């Protein structure tokens, strides 16, 4: 089943308190070197049939009217029909 992904992010000039909270938590957990975090939303829309330009145009209108608030958020649309599972993190990679 083809999948259209809509990523919604707070606009750069809009304060993102959630991202700031995550940024603040990282050093407390021992992660260094991250200078900024912005938190957004990802929508995965499964569509019936082929993803045509008309379908993408529909998705863009969905994104404008419901999935995002254009006053504070921007969005991007992309097609992603092979949804890959995240590989499990192995003990050696996570431990060090």
């Amino acid at each position, binding site marked *: 089943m083809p999948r259209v992904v809509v990523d919604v992010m*707070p606009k750069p000039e809009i304060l993102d*308190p*959630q991202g*700031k909270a995550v940024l603040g938590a990282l050093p407390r957990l021992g992660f260094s070197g991250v200078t900024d975090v912005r938190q957004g939303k990802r929508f995965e829309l499964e569509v019936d049939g082929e993803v045509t330009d008309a379908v993408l145009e529909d998705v863009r209108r969905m994104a404008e009217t*419901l999935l995002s*608030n254009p*006053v*504070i958020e921007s969005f991007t649309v992309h097609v992603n029909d092979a949804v890959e599972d995240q590989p499990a993190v192995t003990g050696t990679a996570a431990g060090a």
Partner: protein
Amino acid sequence: MKVGVVTFPGSLDDVDARRAVGIGGHEAVALWHGDHDLRGVDAVVLPGGFSYGDYLRCGAISRFAPVMTEVVEAAGRGMPVLGICNGFQVLCESHLLPGALIRNDHQRFVCRDQRLRIENTRTPWTGAYAEGAEITVVLKNGEGGFVADDATLDRLEGEGQVVARYLEVNPNGSMRDIAGVANARGNVVGLMPHPEHSVEDLTGSGTDGLGFFTSLVESVWA
């Protein structure tokens, strides 16, 4: 006057709002989110709460409720509409009011008795107050930070569309201490604090909020 109070799934303060309407001398009419019907009311209050669980964004789903089609249409004709807290969020999502409301800058839910200054007394909801009146009403929100771009903020201030501003403490990071705004025409007002909780001496922070529910007569229909 008949004042409708809309109940959405997840509305919390609809009963208090109806009570405040009655104490203010009007007849409260319960309106249902799923009806394409305003039941002949003269004004509408969108109450506080967590409509649709605040899913997606606060007010984003409620905006498309059947009753909102009627509210938007009536607002366009000049009907007074007051959105309180979640109601303010619904009005912003409906584009009846400029700007948006985001999570409090300090990340915590805030609940306090809040000092406000009433800066615009020419709206149907604030005519009972003296210009510059300082009042205390209940404030409780998690996503009450009012944001808009600089040009919009300048226009709101320049055109007198800032209805109320926070005094002493900015409780949620709202830009320019804005607690409430009106549309250009002035009939649609959104307010983050809760005047409906401050209308009786027995409970709440006093009776400073009552003016929002007594103003209709004095400013619109006198």
